[in-house]
Every structure is written in C-alpha cells, then in structure tokens.
C-alpha cells in the first residue's frame, strides 16, 4: 500500500482506476461496490433512485445519464477500517482520453474491466498500454457481464488467457482475473454462488490483498518551486519528492552543479527536524541561490543532467507533433523549451502495431521522441524516480502530450 497519508487522517491511501472499453461496466462496478460497502460507518448510503442503474453513482451529469456514458473522470471515496480507497472512474470513449488520463495518472493500481460478450476491444488495449506506460503495474482484471456467457467456466478461461497474455506483452503481471456480474453483484464484494467453479477472491477481496511496489531509491530529490524573501533572508521552498533533508546536509544544485549547505529547515510552526518525503518546507541555504526548476540532491547520488532528454511520448492533440517543432517540456518544477530532434518507434495505440518509421506523431500514437533542449534539464528514468521521469509537453500552456523517461 502506498505510504501516502491523507491530510486529515492517518490511514494509508490506495487509489484504484477502473479502466477498459466503453460500456464494459466500469461505472457499474464502482457503483455496485459503493452500494454494497455503504454499510461502513461514516459512509453515506447510495441514493435509492440509482438502484439497478449502478453507473449513476458516478455518472452524475445530465448528459452522462441521458447518453448512458461516462464523460468525465470521477473520484469516489471509501473509508475502510484499514485504509482509504479512492475509486477513479474514467471514460472509455476514445475522444475522452484526456479525461481518462486526468484520472489514471493519479492511480496506484487499476482494475481492467473486460465485458465477457465483447472481449478485448480497442480501448481495452489502449488503456492497458497507458497503464503500462504510467507505471501502474498492479492490475486486477474483472471479466464482467458473465451472465451473457451463462456464467460458464470455459468462456471465462478463454478470456482470462487472452487478457493475461496481452497484459504480459505490455510488461504487466496481473494480480488476478475474476469472473464478475457487476450489475447483480456476483464476485464484486461477496463471492458468487452461481459460479461454483471459481474459488478465487471477489474484486473487493482482491483489492484488499494488493501489494504495491515501493519506490526503489530514497536519495533526496528537492525540486525548487521558488524562492521567498522574508526578513532579508532567502528561503528556497518546495516539496520533498524523495528522501529527506536535514540541517547541515551538503547538497548539489542541479543542473548547475553548485555546492550548497542546508543552514536551516523552515516550516510552521517552527521545527528543525529533517523534512521527509512528501513534506512542503522551506530551506535556508549557504552557497549560490538556486531558482525555480532546480533540483537539490546529494553529491554522491545525482539525477541525470542533459541537453538532449528523450522518452516514450503519448500524443493527445489533434495537430501532430512534427519534427523540428518547439514545445515546452514540464518535469517536476521545470519548464524548458525543447525542439523535436527525432521521432522513432511509433506505435498505434488502438492495435499496438508498429507504424512506419517516418512521420509526425499523431493523436493516440506512442513514439520515442528525442529533444534538443534550450538549456540543461534534470531527469531520471521513471522506474527509478517517477517524479523526475515523467513529463508533460505543452503548446501555449495546454497539455498536448506526455512522456516517460526510459
């Protein structure tokens, strides 16, 4: 479970995105879970008017209900005795992929919903690819609408096999494949007696058993948000991305390489204890003053400093990303103009098939993009330091694509 703690409580937080093709039952599954779990203390009962139409628990917009389709991502909370679960519903429709990403980039784990009557579809693949890219490798597969397959084991096994193979090809080892009837509640919270051939956990039981992988390094990374001046003193403010920082620490400012020493850790109320991962603090430094975008790190374990960053990029905008085009690359607190130097290994996210080598990166395509940056940027491989290994590309302040540093 992730070490994050909510602002008001002490319990760990587990954020789960429901992903998959449109109409496969993502919203219904969340609504059904909310309904069955509403006996929990402190949880409001689900509005009686949605009974049987469980998708309406999250599909609350007029146009969502009229069209019976999720348009925007929603987050629903469930406080259990051991943790807070956040269910992130996302739209399955291709045109709404930016809303899917607004939800999915906040998830620790995912449930991939696959309707038994339709099996793997375009958005099943695309969402699975995005999970792999976003580093969400803890995935449960819910094979929904088992009623349309007469709750038969052979039909389930065939889908289970396909799903496991396709996800493995993307580098995801599934944490369980569960036959479900979301509408009726079979294997959602309670185990279903109508599918006696299945002896595994329900979706909620499987969620309860998830083990999340913990970040592999704990070296200090302190991306500078800005410098505040107060009483003639400069305080460098930011949030500790990883590791901890104590008074007396000798640090390196990246990308410049300048050496600084932490004279004081400043917070309110005053407390000079080391600042821990996730904490927003001020640092008073001895040495050259850093600025917004700089990253403080220990001299013995520095992030990568480069004028030629590269990564796997997923493109969102209708106008493709062209060779030679200039966009803004944002990573942690950095915002640096970069020019597209090369585009390679393009992939169609609908089919997962490679595309011809030549060409711009069009909407819904994935490619390896090499940039030439106007000045040095600080990055790290995503698997090592997620917060410095992911970036957003912007045109005039609008996110048009995002990428992961390999």
């Amino acid at each position, binding site marked *: 479970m992730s070490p994050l703690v*909510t602002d008001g*409580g002490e319990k760990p937080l587990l954020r789960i995105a429901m992903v998959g093709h449109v109409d496969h039952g993502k919203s219904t599954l969340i609504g059904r879970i909310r309904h069955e779990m509403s006996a929990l*203390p402190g949880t409001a009962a689900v509005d009686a008017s949605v009974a049987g139409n469980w998708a309406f628990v999250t599909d609350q917009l007029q146009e969502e209900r009229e069209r019976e389709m999720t348009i925007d991502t929603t987050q629903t909370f469930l406080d259990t005795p051991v943790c807070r679960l956040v269910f992130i519903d996302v739209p399955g429709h291709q045109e709404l992929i930016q809303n899917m990403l*607004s939800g999915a*980039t*906040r998830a620790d784990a995912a449930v991939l919903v696959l309707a038994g009557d339709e099996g793997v579809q375009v958005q099943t693949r695309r969402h699975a690819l995005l999970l792999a890219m976003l580093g969400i490798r803890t995935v449960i597969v819910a094979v929904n609408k088992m009623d349309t397959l007469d709750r038969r084991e052979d039909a389930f096994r065939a889908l289970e096999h396909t799903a496991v193979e396709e996800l493995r090809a993307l580098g995801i080892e599934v944490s369980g494949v569960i036959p479900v009837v979301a509408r009726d509640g079979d294997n959602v919270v309670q185990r279903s007696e109508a599918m006696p051939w299945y002896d595994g956990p329900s979706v909620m039981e499987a969620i309860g058993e998830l083990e999340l992988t913990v970040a592999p390094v704990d070296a200090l990374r302190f991306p500078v948000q800005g410098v505040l001046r107060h009483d003639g003193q400069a305080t460098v403010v930011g949030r500790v991305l990883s590791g901890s920082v104590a008074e007396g620490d000798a640090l390196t400012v990246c990308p410049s390489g300048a050496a600084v020493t932490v004279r004081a850790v400043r917070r309110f109320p005053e407390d000079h204890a080391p600042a821990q991962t996730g904490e927003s603090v001020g640092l008073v430094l001895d040495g050259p003053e850093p600025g917004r975008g700089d990253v403080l790190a220990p001299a013995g374990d520095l992030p990568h400093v480069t004028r030629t960053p590269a990564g796997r990029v997923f493109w969102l905008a209708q106008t493709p990303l062209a060779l030679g085009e200039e966009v803004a690359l944002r990573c942690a607190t950095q915002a640096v103009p970069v020019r597209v130097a090369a585009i390679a290994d393009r992939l169609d996210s609908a089919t997962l098939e490679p595309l011809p080598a030549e060409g711009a990166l069009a909407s819904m395509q994935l490619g390896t993009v090499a940039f030439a940056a106007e000045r040095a940027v600080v990055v790290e491989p995503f698997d090592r330091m997620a917060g410095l290994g992911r970036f*957003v590309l912007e045109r005039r*302040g609008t996110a048009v694509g995002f990428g992961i540093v390999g």
Partner: protein
Amino acid sequence: MGPKKIDKFACCNALKTVALKQAIAGMGFEALLLGIRRDEHGVRAKERYFSPRAQDFTWNVGAQPPELWDLYATVDEAAHDRIHPLLHMTELDVWRYVRREGIPVNPLYLAKDGKRFRSIGCAPCCAPIPSTATTVDEIIAELEASREPERAGRAQDKENAFTMQKLRSLGYM
C-alpha cells in the same frame, strides 16, 4: 429573493453566481482559491485542482484540460482560474484537520437547541440537521457514525437532479 419567492435555481444564480461575477470584475481577480471537495457532491467529484473559467463563467465539464499527475496547467487564456486545493479531502478529513491544528470554527456548525448546520451557504436554502454535537470532537464522532450525505440540508441540491450541474456550469462554486 429567497426560494419562496422565486425558484431555487434563479435564487442561487442571483445570490451567488451573479454576485460573484460582480465581485471578480470589481476587484479584478485572476484566480479564486476555493474550498470545494469531491466528496461533497457527485458533480464536484468531477472537478480539477486547476479549473479555467471563461468570461461568461462557464465550466465545460466534458472538455476540461487534461491534468496529468501534479503538472497543472498554470498558463492559460481563461478569464479567471479556480483553484481547489482541498479537492481530495473528505468532510471528516476537514474536521480532523480543524481539530489537529486548533482552527477556530463558525459557531453555526455547533449544536444549539438540538440542531446544527452541517453545510453552510446562503440563509434561504440551508437547513440545520438534528444534532447534539457541541464540540469538534463530538462532530467527528457524529460524522463517523452518520450515513446521511453532507449536503442533506441544502435545498438547491434537491430541487432538480441536475440543478447543481447547471449552477456550476454558470459559475457557482
């Protein structure tokens, strides 16, 4: 004014949205920091931390800019931006935070004569709930056991299923 004289939608729109528009124009604000939270209402559950609003205030909920990780769009051509730093907190989180930090609270939240306000907005539309909680600790204990939604006392949520959505798309907070 007041929902007895005109319908609730028109009342809310006049007392909040129109008044807010006048204040933003008068003061020349570029951004508003608001305390709305996802768990308050199904439509607020769809909000972003940074939400650009057009000149006429409209919130196009289906076409919000992507908000990837914590890399928020901070440059835009919006008339003003709404910033929602408490979006992920629940009602209980807020009260636990109030307790932990010793933050003073509006006395309307505390029970008097067996009633207290759980959600406070405009006078015409807010009704108190039955309660005996006279301290922050008692409010926390009450909420930990409650199954009623937070805004049960808010008339505008009940009027019509989509009133909240209509109000929000016009600029209601």
